């Protein structure tokens, strides 16, 4: 997503051979995505929860 000051929002992921995912510079939307991939991860749920709700809301509005 291009922002007003021409920065792109950026998060980095490292997916390990055992399926473990390391994440860096997690944006709210990325946290929501990661949380949906691993719903039992309470920590990620806390990081992503507010945005997840926003995204669901936005989707509903978009439809």
């Amino acid at each position, binding site marked *: 997503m291009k922002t007003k*000051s021409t920065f792109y929002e*950026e998060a*980095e992921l490292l997916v390990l051979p055992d399926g473990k995912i390391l994440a*860096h510079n997690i*944006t709210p939307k990325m946290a929501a995505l990661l949380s949906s991939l691993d719903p039992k991860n309470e920590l990620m749920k806390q*990081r*992503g929860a507010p945005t997840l709700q926003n995204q669901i809301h936005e989707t509903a509005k978009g439809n």
Partner: protein
Amino acid sequence: MIATEPEIKIPDQAFSRRSLARQRTMLAHATLSDCHLCERHCGVNRLAGERGVCQARDTAQIFSAQIEVSDELELIPTFAIAFSGCDLRCAFCITGRESWNPLAGKPLDKIAIAGRAIAALHEGAARTIMILGGEPTIHLPDVLQLVSMLPEDAKLIWKTNAHGSAQAREFLDGMFDVWLADYKFGNDTCAQRLALVPNYNKIVRKNLLWANEHSELIVRHLVMPGHVECCWKPVAQWLAGNLPEVKVNLRTGFWPAWKAHKHSELCATTSRSESQIARAIAREHHLNLIE
């Protein structure tokens, strides 16, 4: 010739943060003619184009400004503003390309960035504003000017490598609500080998003790593979003995980035067993762990 740190007379805290930051911006900018902002004490004249270890010029670049949720739960969501360049040379730096190059990214447009940060706070998209790097200490004049544009009641986070000088600490006094400080190496041999920095522990400890006296402090330690005994254990012991109540975030998601491949032990992630041992050490020392 040994460079010495000049004494700077900084106004006391009788004024608001914004006005203090404004006053200090001018003073801090003047110190760039004989730069001692970090404990490298290069003493170069950055105003005349000279460059020290960090290679920073007299104006800052930033490489990221966005809302993030990867930091401590009590600080997120935060509007994180990442300054390019750093005075350390950590081989494993996850933002090495930007942290080793103060010209990376874009010039800091303070009005635009402050506007975005304020909007994020007002919209409820962020609850704090975090200044980080690289290492923001090397850009103190621009940081102070940015702070002067932020609301008095904004919760400001100073994310630092804790390698700043006494002069830098004077400029920073009263500017930030929380110091989020890295304590990376538990011995000076590892610090010299992996970050090319001498006297690391003495300097970091001085900064941590000061930060704990002058603001809220959160200490971070990234567990590096093969460095639990030599680095984490001494860090844990020192924290337990000197800052027993301080909040500690033990990060176990080491990522073999940048030039980590030059050090054989850093070519992997931290193993599950090492992470478990690191947490056991924290519990053994009754550290106040936070997520």
